[in-house]
């Protein structure tokens, strides 16, 4: 497959090469099953796409990557026909390349700043990452890293989402004994119970877990830390030298309107968990039930909402999305919105739900919305939805609210030394991810109130580096953990561990 490139292409030639479009499963086919939608690049396509990269000397894309992957470096290896080496290159900085290639919001990170994007479509960095990672998995080219000799130190990781998994990896490689405690009976966090299979096949996560186990990371399931063991238990009685909290943001926000507690009204977490984790779609072979109506109303237009819309469609329902702003303001990743739009979903933009109307058995039967209009942009350029006093009612028998999450209170409520802000988000020193409790670090959605897989991983890496220092007695003693309960980090677009106070929108907490 390795293609001999006769004469090096000039930058101008590279810029003008066409973007390789990743083939997709046809919409009419995919709404009938949970198979993955994008099919991946062929070898030829990957090389052709890799040729579009200019190998910038000061690559903007690397700066825009929360973990600072050597993007031109791995793309060059793909261009040279060595995807296995490309995968190893990515693994130097990113422990979950197959997952990130699929779910990262590249359109808001590396691809948004790619130089080629100024004249043409940006280089398909995500697709290339996915290609390299898939090649590595399918051809078993992964060589495990050298593990440093045992340091005799023990670290407890709480939660097995992307944050917990990357912290576990980083610390294990440095020779520490690592035990991951997970509340569920399965590892992966949102990647298994939230993100649906057609975006992120389960085998990928399972292989990453098996890989970690092969490196000596120990997983213990069914452990709700805070309840079965407190942080003090871990540090004082169980002999752990440090703790990393990666418990995510699993406390669903609900509308407080009449009918919120009606039967058939779910949070996105419950709906997706029943299907993804408990496999309710295979009911009754799997025993977990799901009341899946004929007409599903989904509230919200973020990534999670897109996942719910597309999942409900695959279960054979007529699906409608209700969102109080317009399509332009929809926070979903653009590719997800595009894919959802191809999948025969109804859209009700500028529609604010005000009531779920129920029948005599408390089952929801209709949704009542108020029509909204957008105001003129304010100073920040944001247009807010304004009520019009006009209402409409539509039939539905299932409602899924997808309004984001807050941070789960179990750990902070069982340990008062871990300081949280008024939204319940765990506060940390942004440079080291240390919490206000000695020996306890945190990362991921637990410290942001909800963000992305890659940012969770970036914070986990920062925390892991700090934990390693801490265990060697080299970390400065006084973490700068904010004390103001109104504090939130405006912009966790950190690169190599440093949060920049930028203009990004506020963390929804």
């Amino acid at each position, binding site marked *: 497959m390795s293609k001999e490139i006769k004469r090096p292409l000039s930058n101008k030639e590279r810029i003008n090469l066409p973007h390789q479009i990743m083939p997709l499963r046809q919409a009419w086919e995919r709404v009938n099953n949970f198979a993955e939608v994008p099919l991946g690049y062929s070898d030829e396509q990957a090389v052709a796409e890799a040729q579009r990269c200019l190998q910038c000397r000061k690559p903007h894309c690397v700066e825009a990557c929360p973990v600072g992957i050597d993007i031109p470096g791995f793309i060059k290896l793909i261009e040279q026909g060595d995807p296995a080496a490309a995968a190893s290159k990515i693994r130097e900085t990113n422990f979950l390349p197959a997952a990130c290639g699929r779910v990262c919001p590249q359109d808001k990170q590396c691809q948004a700043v790619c130089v080629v994007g100024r004249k043409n479509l940006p280089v398909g960095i995500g697709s290339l990452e996915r290609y390299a990672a898939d090649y590595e998995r399918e051809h078993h080219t992964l060589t495990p890293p050298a593990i440093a000799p045992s340091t005799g130190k023990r670290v407890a990781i709480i939660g097995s989402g992307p944050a917990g998994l990357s912290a576990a990896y980083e610390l294990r490689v440095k*020779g520490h004994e690592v035990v991951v405690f997970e*509340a569920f009976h399965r590892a992966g966090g949102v990647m298994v119970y939230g993100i649906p299979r057609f975006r992120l096949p389960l085998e990928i996560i399972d292989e990453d877990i098996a890989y970690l186990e092969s490196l000596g990371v120990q997983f213990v399931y*069914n452990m709700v830390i805070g309840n079965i063991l407190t942080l003090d238990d871990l540090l004082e009685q169980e002999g752990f030298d440090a703790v990393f909290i990666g418990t995510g943001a699993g406390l669903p926000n609900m509308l407080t309107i009449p009918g919120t507690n009606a039967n058939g009204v779910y949070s996105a977490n419950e709906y997706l968990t029943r299907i993804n984790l408990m496999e309710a779609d295979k009911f*009754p072979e799997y025993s977990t*039930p799901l009341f899946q109506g004929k007409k599903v109303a989904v509230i919200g237009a973020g990534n999670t909402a897109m996942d719910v819309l597309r999942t409900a469609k695959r279960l054979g329902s007529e699906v409608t999305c209700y969102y109080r702003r317009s399509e332009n303001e929809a926070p979903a990743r653009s590719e997800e919105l595009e894919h959802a739009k191809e999948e025969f979903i109804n859209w009700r933009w500028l529609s604010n739900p005000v009531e779920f109307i129920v029948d005599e*058995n408390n089952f929801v039967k209709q949704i009542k919305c108020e029509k909204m209009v957008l105001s003129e942009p304010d100073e920040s350029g944001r247009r807010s939805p304004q009520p019009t006093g006009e209402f409409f009612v539509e039939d539905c028998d299932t409602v899924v609210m997808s309004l984001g999450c807050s941070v*789960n*209170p179990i750990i902070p409520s069982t340990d008062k030394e871990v300081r949280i802000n008024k939204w319940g988000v765990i506060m940390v020193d942004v440079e080291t991810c240390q919490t206000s409790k000695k020996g306890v670090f945190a990362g991921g959605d637990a410290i942001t109130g909800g963000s992305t897989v890659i940012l969770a991983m970036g914070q986990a890496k920062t925390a892991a580096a700090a934990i390693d220092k801490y265990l060697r007695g080299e970390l400065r003693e006084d973490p700068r953990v904010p004390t103001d309960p109104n504090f939130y980090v405006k912009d966790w677009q950190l690169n190599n561990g440093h949060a920049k106070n930028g203009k990004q929108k506020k963390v929804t907490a």
Partner: protein
Amino acid sequence: MTERIEHIVKHIHFDSEEEVAKALDHAGQLQDLTYEEKNDLAAAFSIIFYHHDHAGITAMGKLAIRAEHLIAGFGCDVVPFLLGELINADSESAAYLGKAIALNPCPNVDALLQAWEENWDDDFAGINIIQTLSYFKDPDVVKAIPQILVACKSANFQVRAMGLYTIGKLALRLDPGVFSEELLLSMFDTVFTMLADSKPLVRKNAARSLGKMQKRGLLTDKQRLQVLAAFKAILGTDGQHNWDRAFIVRHEAEHFLPLFSSRPAMGDRYRQSFKILAKKELCEKTFHFVIEAPMIARKLKAGQFIIVRPHDHSERIPLSLCGWDVDRGTIEIIVNTVGKTSAEINALQVGDRFIDIVGPLGQRSHVQAYPDTCVVIGGGYGTGAIIPTAKDLKALGNKVIGIVGARSKDLLLMTQELAAVCDEVMITTNDGSAGIEGFVTDALQQVVLREDVSYVLAVGPVPMMQAVSKLTEPLAITTYVSLNAIMVDGTGMCGACRVSVGGKTRFACFHGPDFNGHEVDFEQLMKRQKMFVKEEREALYSVEA
């Protein structure tokens, strides 16, 4: 000798620490020293190293250490001089000279090795050089290790002992990453063989080096076991009772032994078997189980619950506890068959295992010392669920009355166990086949008429909890009900368990399960419990079919 050096050297008198200190201060301030000046100063100050009278006099000892640092700071220029001195030094001065070499920023491992080569036959020079190597922090010193290993086999036992000592020091001090696998293997082989040396000092140093290597995680598991066996032999605890005669060797082995004993992987401590140790039929379709779950048992508090999955494809269902035993590491549950998953559980036998049990979940019951009587009311599995709370209330000195309700006599369960933790138990049956004919509320009515009640807890079917709350509300008696909402995760993640309490949405799994009965919206709870009736029936048929 230049004038400024001469001026300093004049001050070095061994009867006055002050003078020497002054000389050191002075020398430390000099700038732009020439090669000659450095060597002159080194020669002058190194005399302090030989001045053995200061043994025990800490002030002069400290000055010697300062001199050591000063000379080390002169860098490469003074290394040949120091090496020359080292070769002939006595052991005490050799320590200072050695540190001046080891602390010297000049990359001098090669020079040292060369000096060793040239004086290979001089064992005393060899000892001084090996000792010097033990002070190095520069990772470059690894390249001296093969030579040190050769020295460990010297005919002179003092050379052997010093060699082993140094291996241990370097193993501990250097970053584990600098040792190649091959090198580690020969280090282990050499040191391990020396455990059988004829000289106690050598055996002792070998044992100590192995201890240090293990401490840094440099040994493989197989090597660890080899050393473990050897140390046991040294201590005579291997069954042979042929311990090492030398105390110093035994002492070393004893000190390091714990490092070699196998350490079970940390994670294994937390794996519970969830094995069923006992099963008993309490009444039709209702079984009592004793399950092995030591971690959960240790943390449970009255009122908390667990979530279980009997099999891989099962639903997660919440269950209350009717007891637990911290010492035996067991928990006890009562399961009433109502649908597919409860039926699957009741089909399990002694020796079977649950695939998952998670807990404890939820908050503790509101247990405290109340001014007046406490009443705990149970129906069905609830009779078991109120036992831990009754026990806690009793332990705090409360008067506790238990009320149990069932349709008829043969559906009563756990009444004796409840009686054991209550002052009085009242039984009600709908058909009058035992106790008071009627409902639990009839018994509660009798109690509130005859005495003051400050706390009521009701666990059981929703209509029962609702009726109890209705009765106590006008009397303003604090009343809690344990809400058995439908759940998924049990940690607050999904919101399936939401209930309306006092007009607010609450998560039964996290905020509850006990809530103020006067504020609960029971109608909504009952309807929400019927959310999956159609699907559940389908599931049940699929098991029966």
